[in-house]
């Protein structure tokens, strides 16, 4: 047979010329208005340690940075249509892959942290392969059991993992909390930049495509399995990295931090902020973690009532989360604005 024939599809007339409408493509150069807000926020967060050095608030912000990355990494997995209920387990794999050599072999944190990230990535990618057979709720449940298996293995791990009480004595990276602040902050910026790049490039398009229809995606050459594995590997890299850094920061790796409860709260962060928006997880962490800890700290044991109330308010009033609601509002305002512009131009 002939070689690959070069076919120029653009010449094909599918409809009579007359039926083709006038080109009215108005390229909307909508520059994101929040860009300056974002810059300001980064600046404030970068200078903040000067004011709150060593305080409890600094600890809360460090936690915030960790959870922003972890919640965002969960969302990256979710854009490929995978509702993964094992993200806590991947944090745990990263944490224990760092904690075990640190405690028992006295390896340097600078070795164990990358080790944790790589271990989580490899385990994530290997497990993603059989899980690529599962879709929708079956995938969600499968990963839920996977998380349960991981926690059970940690708990059954004997002296090596410290069983259910956790593995203490993980060597700290720094003695000063301010360094942790900047480490977590820097890691957050880099991680978010990577995720942003991934989502808004063709890789993210592929993932969103298979999430909508794996059959249509396959028909144009977008493989379902490889993109789903890629999403999980990418997400578990950041979960594992943050899990590893976090256990060096806390000095302990404990299975409670990685179980179903922890995973569900990470998902809550994303849902509250808005699962369909890149900034949703960050906003959700701010809403469910920062606001209660900063403003309702006096409630102590009653604090969960505040978070539960926030969850209910969001569930009842904002189906698309906070960012989803903001987007809807700005869209409406800008549409009205544009309409006003058009009618203003008309004689």
């Amino acid at each position, binding site marked *: 047979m002939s070689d690959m024939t070069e076919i120029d599809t653009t010449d094909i007339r599918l409809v009579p010329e007359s039926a083709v409408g006038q080109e009215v493509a108005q390229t909307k150069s909508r520059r994101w208005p929040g860009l300056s807000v974002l810059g300001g926020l980064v600046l404030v967060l970068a200078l903040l340690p000067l004011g709150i050095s060593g305080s409890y608030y600094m600890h809360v912000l460090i936690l915030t940075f960790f959870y922003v990355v972890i919640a965002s990494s969960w969302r990256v997995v979710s854009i490929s249509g995978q509702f993964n209920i094992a993200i806590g387990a991947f944090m745990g794999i990263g944490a224990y892959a760092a904690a075990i050599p640190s405690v028992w072999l006295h390896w340097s944190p600078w070795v164990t942290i990358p080790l944790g990230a790589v271990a989580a990535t490899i385990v994530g990618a290997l497990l993603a392969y*059989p*899980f690529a*057979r*599962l879709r929708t*709720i*079956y995938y969600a*449940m*499968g990963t*839920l*059991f*996977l998380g*349960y*298996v991981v926690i*059970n*293995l940690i*708990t*059954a791990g004997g002296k090596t993992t410290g*069983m*259910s009480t956790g593995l203490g004595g993980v060597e700290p990276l720094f003695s000063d909390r301010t360094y942790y602040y900047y480490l977590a902050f820097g890691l957050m910026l880099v991680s978010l930049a990577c995720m942003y790049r991934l989502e808004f490039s063709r890789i993210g398009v592929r993932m969103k495509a298979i999430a909508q229809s794996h059959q249509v995606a396959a028909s144009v050459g977008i493989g379902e399995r490889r993109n789903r594995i890629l999403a999980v590997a990418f997400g578990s890299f950041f979960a594992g990295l943050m899990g590893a850094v976090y256990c060096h920061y806390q000095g302990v790796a404990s299975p409670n931090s990685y*179980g*179903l*409860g922890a995973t*569900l*709260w990470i*998902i*809550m962060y994303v*849902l*509250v902020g808005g*699962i369909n928006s890149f900034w949703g997880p960050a906003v959700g962490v701010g809403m469910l973690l920062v606001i209660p800890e900063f403003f309702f700290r006096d409630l102590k*044991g*009653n604090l*969960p*009532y505040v*978070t*539960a*109330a926030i*969850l*209910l308010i*969001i*569930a*009842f009033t904002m*189906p698309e989360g906070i960012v989803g609601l903001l987007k809807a509002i700005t869209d409406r305002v800008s549409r009205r604005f544009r309409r006003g512009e058009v009618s203003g131009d008309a004689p």
Partner: protein
Amino acid sequence: MEIAVQTVINVVLLGVVYILMGIGFAFILNLLGIFNLAHGAIFMSAAYGCYLLVVKLGLPGFAAFPVTVLAAAAFGILVERFLFRPMKADFNRTMMVCIALSTVLVTTFNRFLGTRALAIPPFLAGTTGLGPYRVQTDRILAFCIGIVLLVGIILFVDRSRWGAQMQAVTQNREGAALQGIRFSRVAMLAVSVGFGLAAIGGVFMGTLYNLTPFIGDVTLIKVLMLVILAGLGSFNGIFYVGGLLGLLYGALPVVLPGAVVDALASILVLALLLIRPRGFFGHE
């Protein structure tokens, strides 16, 4: 040998608890399309509620048991009407609501009773001779009640008019509507029955094992295992798989430490799910 008799009773009781929980969960899932992640919290709350009635109010166990179950069923009606229905079966939103609900319940019992392990006092004290063995009377009673409940729930699902309506709606929502089955009423009934069954399971567990505010989470995972392995939409499967889980979690701890049992059982379930992603008894 006493341990063998004890184990048989444990296996059956655990199996019954899982089946009751699974059937209740499946009612809510099949009829409302809601993964009720608060199912474990309801279970835990019922156990604590019964504990409070017996220990703080001094009610006899036989009175506290039905009061707890009816209260849970009434609570189910409220939850369906004011929390589930407005969410329109949206997975993400119902998930938020369920987690808020279970957070409130866990926090409340945590605040007032602490995290230390408690136990509902036995309904009947003492032991009974069972052939050459002596077994706690309470367990024998629970065993009998468990068997009765199991038969009762089978009859309810298969024979009663309500059970038939629920199955009809499960299989075909529009068809059921055409036959004049009011969906909102059946949905309310499903949540009510589901919570009631969870409460029965909770009281059972509370009399047999120690209570902590966290037993709900562990039980929830087992219920999810049960429902998924049975196959979504299958009621029959729940009986078989519930029995299997009862066997695993009732018999294995006799020979292995608890953590190893959990690890082995969860690996087994995960393997089964990967082999048969749609469960073993589903008709999809």
